[in-house]
């Protein structure tokens, strides 16, 4: 601290005639008592009206960072426990000549594979995924409703359509994961097939 080495400035405050004391004189105090000076007094509604909006913000440190840290820590513990107790699947060496009884795509493509059971591969493998991705990307440019309407009740069409789409995708994926057995035929797990035909 450089400024503590020099002795504090001594200022003499001259007495002012009590009858002539102004507002500024009343506020005047020795520098040793207050390390700042009163420059002017602005009465309310005087020159500039200071508009202060209600402050709805909090400090990032610690409010946001502590939550982020906690979330990351929980996820780390969860992954560690998962990795300790559940092994990643590994079957025998890849062999193009031996087709397994049940061959499935990764789970996020099983909705598409399920569509493959009903539609031509061009539809299920090309048109639908292209439509889904491009459709998702253009959502903000299609939904040109009131930009401030964020409550679900204010934008029922968008919410209902999106929810229906999500449910459709989930159901297709769910059927593909659990209700498809050998030869990708319909099968109820544990009833007419021995267990789940699904690898993560």
């Amino acid at each position, binding site marked *: 601290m450089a400024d503590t080495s020099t002795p504090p400035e001594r200022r003499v405050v001259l007495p002012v005639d009590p009858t002539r004391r102004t507002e500024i004189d009343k506020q005047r105090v020795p520098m040793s008592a207050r390390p700042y000076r009163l420059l002017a007094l602005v009465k309310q509604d005087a020159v500039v009206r200071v508009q202060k909006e209600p402050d*709805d*913000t*909090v*400090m*990032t*440190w*610690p*409010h*946001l*960072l502590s*939550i*982020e840290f906690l*979330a*990351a820590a929980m*996820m*780390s513990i969860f*992954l560690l426990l*998962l*990795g*300790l107790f*559940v*092994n*990643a699947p*590994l*079957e025998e*060496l*890849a*062999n*193009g000549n031996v*087709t*397994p009884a049940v*061959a*499935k*795509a*990764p*789970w*996020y*493509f099983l909705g*598409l*594979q399920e569509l493959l059971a009903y539609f031509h*591969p*061009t539809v299920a*493998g*090309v048109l639908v*995924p292209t439509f889904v991705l491009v459709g*998702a*990307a253009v*959502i*903000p*440019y299609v*939904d040109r409703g009131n*930009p*401030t*309407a*964020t*409550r679900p009740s204010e*934008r029922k069409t*968008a919410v209902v359509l*999106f929810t229906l789409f999500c449910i459709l995708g989930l159901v297709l994926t769910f059927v593909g994961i659990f209700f498809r057995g050998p030869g990708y035929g319909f099968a109820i797990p544990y009833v007419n097939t021995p267990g789940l035909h699904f690898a*993560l």
Partner: protein
Amino acid sequence: MSFLERVDQTIRRSAVWRSLFRQPYPNDERSRAYAVMNNVFLHIHPVRVRQHAVKFAYTFCLGGLSFFLFLVLTVTGVYLMFYYVPSATQAYSNILAIQSEVTFGLLTRNIHRWGAHLMVFFVFLHMMRVFYHGAYKPPREFNWVVGVVLLFLTIMLSFTGYLLPWDQIAYWAITIGTNMGGYAPLFNTPAKLILLGGIEVGQNTLLRFYVLHIMVFPLLAAIFLAVHFWRIRKDGGISGPL
């Protein structure tokens, strides 16, 4: 003053410590603002955030956790790369060696596998969260598009990684996956040929998927993540409350 306190003081007063952390531990608003602003990792955040944004039930930390999983996958993936050769004759035995011989190899592979599935899942959930909050509305339209690109990259990262163990699950999942995509009417044969490097899944496919998985898609994802985070700030921070 106890011994530990003296050690603590000595470390904090050392030239190295004070060059590393320019301020003491932030305890008041001013120093906390500086701590966020002056730290290369924390300055991704604004100094202050809106109150509703720190409520867990608003974001469920989905985007942040997706990014955290991306980091976990990068770290575990780099470790696995030391022991893995993308060769049709070696890949499978490398996986077996990782599981049985490499220190923490099994754990690392498990975390990489489960983390990858979780990341796809969390990116999906993040997207749903953003939709239901109407957070793609102006001025955030383009950041939503960047998010869709990131979803695509996440799925592609997972899909290309799926082949690398070179076991029956991997082989046939990729065969089915590429068969579905290979029906693109305009560039049917070339698209599949380019993707697989042949008419069926083989050595060329393994090498292609490996390069895409460890280099091309992570780099693209990192670039789009940077744009994604940058635009959150530029578009006025996190979206408003419901």
